[in-house]
């Protein structure tokens, strides 16, 4: 009898975990973005924002172009794109622009994007935008992560020149970690310093991490 009961408990647990497992958002990506990012510094050595250039994959680019009119077929001017670019940056706000910054462990917030526009080349759409920090910050350690917590979008940084520092103070060291670079490198810079619960999610496993240490 006990045995039967035990098995029943097991079954109930199975049923529960089936549904719970279904509840956690472990989507697979539907959109692929090839990213290039720049960290912008002011003359006093504080970081003022992040400038992104995100190139969408073939399929998503085509999807986004659906219904967009252009004078010349297959070629679009920046003006023809401006409503779409507007839609893009507005939608991105809901997701925190997929950009998560911490200065000395403290979370930094971003303002609305500025200087945003789209261009279209080789059937791929690229969204350019600059995210100003709410308050420019000077910090010894800066971590900027780019990822989609739900992993609906797979962010991959460009093979060449994925990240650049723009007018950063001399002596600042930048390290860029791709999601598959493993834990070894991350440990070196003291992962514990950036420990915080609210980043704990599935997509974080696929995070791209930019780390800057300044004297």
């Amino acid at each position: 009898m006990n045995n039967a009961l035990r098995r029943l408990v097991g079954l109930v647990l199975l049923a529960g975990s089936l549904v719970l497992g279904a509840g956690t958002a472990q989507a697979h990506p539907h959109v692929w973005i090839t990213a290039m990012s720049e960290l912008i510094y002011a003359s006093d050595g504080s970081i003022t924002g992040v400038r992104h250039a995100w190139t969408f994959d073939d399929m998503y680019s085509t999807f986004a172009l659906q219904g967009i009119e252009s004078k010349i077929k297959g070629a679009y001017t920046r003006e023809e794109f401006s409503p779409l670019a507007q839609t893009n940056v507005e939608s991105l706000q809901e997701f925190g622009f997929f950009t998560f910054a911490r200065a000395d462990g403290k979370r930094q917030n971003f303002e609305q994007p500025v200087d945003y526009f789209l261009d279209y080349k080789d059937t791929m759409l690229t969204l350019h935008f600059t995210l100003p920090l709410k308050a420019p910050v000077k910090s010894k350690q800066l971590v900027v992560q780019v990822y989609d917590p739900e992993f609906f979008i797979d962010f991959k940084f460009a093979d060449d020149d994925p990240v650049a520092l723009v007018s950063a103070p001399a002596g600042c060291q930048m390290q860029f970690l791709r999601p598959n670079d493993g834990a070894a490198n991350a440990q070196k810079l003291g992962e514990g310093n950036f420990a915080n619960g609210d980043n704990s999610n599935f997509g974080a496993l696929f995070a791209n991490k930019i780390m800057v240490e300044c004297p």
Partner: protein
Amino acid sequence: MAASVLAVVLVLDAAAHDLMAQSAFGGPRPDSQVGGIVGWLLSRQSEFYRQMSATIRAARSDGTAVWTLLAISFAYGIFHAAGPGHGKAVISSYLVANQETARRGIALSFASALMQSLVAVAIVAVCAWLLNATAKTMCGAEKAIEIASYGLIAAFGARLVWTKGGGFIGALQTPGAVAATHSHDHGHDHDHGHGQDHHHDHVHDELCGHSHGPEPAELAGPRGWQRGLSAILTVGIRPCSGAILVLVFALAQGLFWAGIAATFVMGLGTAITVAIIAVVAVSARDLARRLSAARDGGGALVMRRIEFAAAGLVLLFGLGLLLGYLAAERATCL
């Protein structure tokens, strides 16, 4: 049995990865690469999905590429549904709560997948093909349907809880004899709605000691499809974001028909996986019934409890999705 073992491993694997993800920023970080079965499923899906755009492009000049597209879509469908998702959770819970047969589970899986494909094709045909609407408009339509579908799941769950709650309370009150009312209870839940308490005592005497489960004929009765239809609607109304992307892409390449074919083949693959999971759920419930039947009289109470819990899960699931506590695959809006 092998299938159920696979299902258990899958779920445990997913759970383990969730836990690991949780600790990722707290303690020592596990390797960033997602391994295990879930990781493997994810990478397979991504591969198949990414091959689709190239294959559709190729099909413009080479007709045989369409066959490749269909093969990829089928594989994608199978893998896509093997990952966690709300559709199969709702179907499985419904089957457990409502004492449905495995055969009906399979039929429901296929019907809801077919409906999902139809909705995806309808959205793209109307929005993109007929109206030449923008992605923003399509995404708006997707989001509206999404909310409607979560509402439907919650309503569906609430109805299950209501009807199952009656059986559960009945079982609590008369622990010795409820097994006998089993079949009766069930039939009336659906035919007369909330009137079951009234009929309960009445037939209890008549049927005492007769059957332990619903008669197969009763389940497959004329009301059967009506009941199943709400399950199909609930699960099938929400299209897969991936299908919509593929359809729009195919339309832009002048191969809308290939996109439609791919969508239905994708649905076929999805249906196969969901059907397997549904059969596992039904088998687990039947096993529980057999095990609990050995207990003196209390077995029915155990079964009522399981059914009630499954009904509750559907409701919680709908509410969780509706209120944003649970995240499902999101609509393609950027």
